[in-house]
């Protein structure tokens, strides 16, 4: 696979899901960084160059997606980075209205849908 520009930050509290996303994305040629929650994601973002895309799990403790987005939007250096929500819930419209998300991925993850969103937002 050809190397692609930019890094994708995976934020998910489940280790299996993180592994699966990392392996899949790396296979597709993306650089991947992974963190286990919203707080850790903010720390990572403050200490690294802005990534190309953030894949954010909805349901995490202690800081879930909406709580993360509140903090994220205040941070000028990286608040422009597109965030894609990952959720197991069938209905996403209400969740998408809770923050400036740029797209969503449903669990179980359909690979075509995943790559569509990524190529649209991160190239």
């Amino acid at each position, binding site marked *: *696979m050809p190397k692609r520009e930019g890094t994708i930050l995976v934020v998910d509290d*489940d280790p*299996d*899901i993180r*592994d*699966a*996303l990392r*392996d*899949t994305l790396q*296979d*597709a040629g993306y650089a991947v960084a992974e963190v286990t929650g919203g707080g850790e994601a903010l720390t990572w973002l403050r200490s690294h160059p802005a990534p190309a895309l953030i894949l954010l799990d909805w349901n995490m403790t202690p800081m879930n997606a909406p709580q993360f987005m509140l903090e994220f939007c205040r941070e000028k250096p990286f608040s422009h980075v597109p965030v894609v929500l990952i959720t*197991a819930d*069938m*209905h996403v*419209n*209400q969740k998408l209205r809770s923050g400036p998300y740029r797209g969503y991925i449903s*669990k*179980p*993850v359909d*690979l075509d849908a995943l790559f569509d969103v990524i190529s649209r937002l991160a190239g």
Partner: protein
Amino acid sequence: MPEYRDQELADSAELVGEIVRSVANRWRFRAEAGRLGQHPLDETLRLVQSLEAAARALEGKGGPAGAGRLDGDDDRFRHLVDSVSDYAIFLLTREGNVASWNTGAERIKGYRAEEVLGKHFSIFLPKEDVEGGKPERELAIAVRDGRYTEEGWRVRKSGQRFWAHVTITALRNAEGRLTGFVKVTRDVDDLRKTTEALRQSEERFRLMVEAVRDYAIFMLDPEGRIASWNVGAQRLKGYSADEIIGKHFSIFYPEEERRREHPQYELARAKAEGRYEEEGWRLRKDGSRFWANVVITAIFDAEKRHLGFTKVTRDFTEAKRLREAQLAIELRDEFLSIAGHELRTPLTALLMQLQSLARFGQIEDARVQQRLEKTVASAMRLETLIAQMLDVSRITAGRLELETEQVGLDALVREVVDRFSELAAESRCEVDLRLEPVQGCWDRLRLEQVVTNLVSNAIKYGRGRPIEIETRRDGADAMLRVTDHGLGIAPEDRQRIFQRFERSRRTREYSGFGLGLWITRSIVEASGGTIAVESQPGRGATFTVRLPPALEETDAQA
């Protein structure tokens, strides 16, 4: 006018004074105790004061010393006795003939003085008493004991009977020789009627309690011994009144409760707090247990003396079972929900790994690739089953949420059929689409689930035969019709297939939970629609879904 025998009265003034005082005392007591019934308090107190004054006057004249000093005081007393209207107060000769008459006597008995003076007092008694010699016995007792008292029937002039309180006091002179009698009669008919009414009402209440069948209602004495028993108690506990009354109520408690003195504890709480309620196991006569709801209430009289307890016991065994069954169902649904979510996460990871492996892994061996694809298919099936499980737990918990938006039913059917095109071709099912454009405001994903379920069933059960799918308007409603030409559904199965965990008997060999049509029906009904099936066994089945164009909004603005 009444005729007094002054000398005799003077001899007996002390005694009459005593009688008058006892009458006064009795009324004063009733007034102070608030037990006057219909008698007005102020009038009663006035009467009491008059009587007390009269008693004082009379007692001052008692004995030999007072014998000569009757004069004016005697007139006043005569006047007083005359004016008393609540009591018949009159004198009898030694023989029992009426010797004086007052206002009260006239009012109560109905005779005027001139009609009655000189007559024997037996005219005031019922005929049968007179024939039985009662008047003579009354006087004989008064002579022997100084006084005769009774409550009994008396007769008015009109012949009407009334319930009377009667006192006959023997009068003696200073030498102790009998001079006659004072008779005081009070009409207590109203009091008797009230008492009788009260007694009857208590009796009715007692009968009612005794007849209650669904509650054991009984009384305990202060020590906890059973004092009464009703039909409900007999039915519930199995003992008859004869065998249980007098026994201690701890007999109803299991051994371990008795050992820790729980029955005594209950009584102590009831006595201290007025009432004690609990649920627990109790024993029937045959030793079997039942789950009882028990209320014990302490009873006190007006003077706050503890009289005992009432105990009401109900059989809650069924209610307890029902509660436990409901709890078990809730726990099951909660478990399904948690299990579903927990299973789904690793399955999501598994599916992603398998699919990316199939896509990016450099797999040269075609057999490995093939088996990888089969593994993906198995994992997908597992995912479908878990999704169904989660849907069931949502539906049973009433948490099936719909997110409505504008949906074209015809376009949605086309998408679903596209997805099934490969499977339909494999199953040699030619799909005939007759799609009229139909728009509505529905939950897209849930509606997609409905169409998916009906189409996949049609392919599954109608293998090798054509399938027709139709959408059109039916009045204001949207209609979706899916027809296969497969096994069909026996008439007795047509309702059952929409139930949970049910499948048509002919389709036992197919896998799955048997939840698909139940979930489909739940979604259609939650959307305000209906689903029905027509079928000729062996010739296929037609499922018809009707949906209103939008869910009835409760909020007019929405």
